[in-house]
């Protein structure tokens, strides 16, 4: 009983932390983008207002059950990945559900969200949504290849499928995996650009073409759920990268610093990039990132 309570409490705390940090990051993204663009920009807490407003909007549309389920699927994905990914090295404050094979499970669960979104968007009957979803799924096929390759390389190299094991390994040797398996890190970071859906890989919801794609029929509370899930998921992904490649974090401040540095990569790349078309994006991911992934596997097998 004690344990269950502790886990529930841990999950709640993790969620709140992830939500806050994720939303703040998005606000900082807007602020930094504005500074690059010669503007003052909104305050860093602007996205809290946006989320609150979206949550307080009324909804009077109904396209069918799946439309309501779509955002929920994304939220579930975000929360589930958050529960599996260890937040800190020391598991006392943020207990989570780690088990052997959670890396493989993560690979599966991270695809679940976009699929849910696809179902939800399909139900709305908006052609923009349908095309956006097709693009999103094709682009996912693109970046999943280097991402899976990088993870497989790690699994082979260190003979484990548990994130906690990898973290412990880094803590024991004192060497981050980004140095011991650099190719896997490169492949994973390049895949991350696609995962975050910032420019140049934001064709999914490109406003100039699809009027925000899968979300075009979702306003108000749907968008609220999607935005919150997006920020939680962003934090979860960044934490996973920190756990896997940057030696985890001993306390929240270090975690925030490390995740923010990682977050800067897609953000800054996005500010100065136009967007790729879908087939160009896929070609990009199947080029250098996949090559790095392959090298990582070769390194894992032969070294």
């Amino acid at each position, binding site marked *: 009983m004690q344990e269950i309570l502790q886990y529930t409490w841990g999950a709640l705390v993790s969620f709140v932390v992830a939500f806050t940090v994720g939303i703040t990051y998005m606000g900082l993204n807007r602020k930094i983008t504005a500074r690059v*663009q010669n503007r003052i920009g909104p305050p860093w807490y602007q996205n809290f207002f946006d989320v609150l407003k979206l949550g307080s909007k009324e909804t009077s549309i109904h396209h069918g059950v799946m439309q309501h389920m779509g955002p929920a699927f994304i939220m579930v994905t975000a929360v589930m990945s958050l529960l599996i990914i260890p937040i800190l090295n020391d598991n006392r404050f943020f207990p989570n559900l780690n088990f052997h094979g959670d890396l493989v499970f993560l690979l599966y669960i991270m695809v679940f969200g976009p699929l849910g979104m696809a179902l939800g968007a399909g139900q709305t009957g908006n052609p923009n949504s349908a095309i956006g979803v097709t693009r999103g799924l094709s682009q996912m096929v693109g970046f999943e290849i280097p991402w899976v390759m990088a993870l497989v390389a790690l699994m082979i190299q260190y003979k484990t499928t548990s994130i906690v094991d990898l973290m412990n390994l880094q803590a024991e040797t004192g060497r981050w995996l980004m140095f011991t398996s650099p190719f896997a890190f490169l492949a994973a970071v390049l895949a991350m650009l696609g995962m975050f859906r910032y420019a140049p890989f934001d064709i999914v919801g*490109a406003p100039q073409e699809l009027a925000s794609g899968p979300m075009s029929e979702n306003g108000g509370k749907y968008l609220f759920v999607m935005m919150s899930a997006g920020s939680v998921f962003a934090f979860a992904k960044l934490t996973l990268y920190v756990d896997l490649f940057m030696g985890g974090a001993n306390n929240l401040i270090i975690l925030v610093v490390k995740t923010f540095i990682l977050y800067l990569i897609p953000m800054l790349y996005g500010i100065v990039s136009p967007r790729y078309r879908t087939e160009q994006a896929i070609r990009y991911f199947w080029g250098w990132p996949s090559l790095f992934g392959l090298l990582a596997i070769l390194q894992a097998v032969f070294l």
Partner: protein
Amino acid sequence: MREKATTLYIGPQHPGITGNMMVRVKVEGDTIVKATTEVGYLHRSFEKLIEKRNWLQSFTLLCRFCVPEPDPVEESYARAVELLEGREVPERAKYIRVLVLELARIASYLLWYGGQSASLGLYTIGQWSVGDRNYILDLFEELTGGRVYHMYIWPGGVRRDLPKGFENKVLKTMDYLEKRLDDYDDLMFDNTIFRKRTQGVGIIDKEKAVEWGVVGPPLRGCGIRSDIRIDDPYEVYNKLDFVVPVEEGGDIWARALVRRQEIRQSIRIIRQVLDNIPAGKYYNKIPNPQKWALPKGDAYTRTEAVRGEVGMYVVSDGGTHPRRAHFRGAAYVHAITLLENLLVGENISDIAAIMNSLGTCPPEIER
């Protein structure tokens, strides 16, 4: 297996459309098989209203024909009225008109920078260039009193003389802009993704270009040197030294390169104008506009705007009101028959980029 074609409505409410119009596209997968332009959302019946205004009152309507660059319309109309009446324009006024036209050209190109790059998802350029455009609008405000609508070029000259110290302000702004243009180049033209997105997209056939009615930068992007400032010179353009840039290829990239060079040529023209501007009268007084009747006849004048050839066909029946003032906009051809042709076979991702590169401007079509 043949996929079923879906119909997509790009517009009228769509972030990717340039203004208030609609392109109905039939797509198979991501490829467009048929495109139809639907316009009329901005039809204000200007030409009908001008028949009810006198020769001078028309100017309030004229500048609203095309909002991003109103001056070529005023210029065309003013010149047509002068042709009809045989009115002389002082030399100084001609120089000031060229100055205003070129400033408007730069302002419009800066807006194009924003539109073209935003259509491909690069928002930073737009923020910079539209922000910098304000400096030109400031100049306009000082010169004419209005940021967007100027009503400055009038029959017989211009409405006001240059304010004191205006030349220096223009030169300063030009210096600043020249520096900024290099920044835009770094981010836009040196960008691999921008190049990949624009090269080979929206190709206009060089052989057919003139027949299809392509004008302005899109025509020069096909490798045809055609510019009304040179071919059918007006004001003092034949006394100024400038180059009409030409690029081969006929795709969005070529059109972008043409515009990139033209904005620099405009800066060059402005410098020359400020060097050579003569002193003297800026305005030949017109009679009381309420009683001002023009002789019977018709006149057609053409001006090179950023979108290409704009013209004004003015007919007078000898009265105080225009019998007919028919405006010819470049977008009238570009956005309808040409766009419908060009879009077939392209990817839906490129619709916004192609439209921006053609400089479609719906108010000019519908008037």
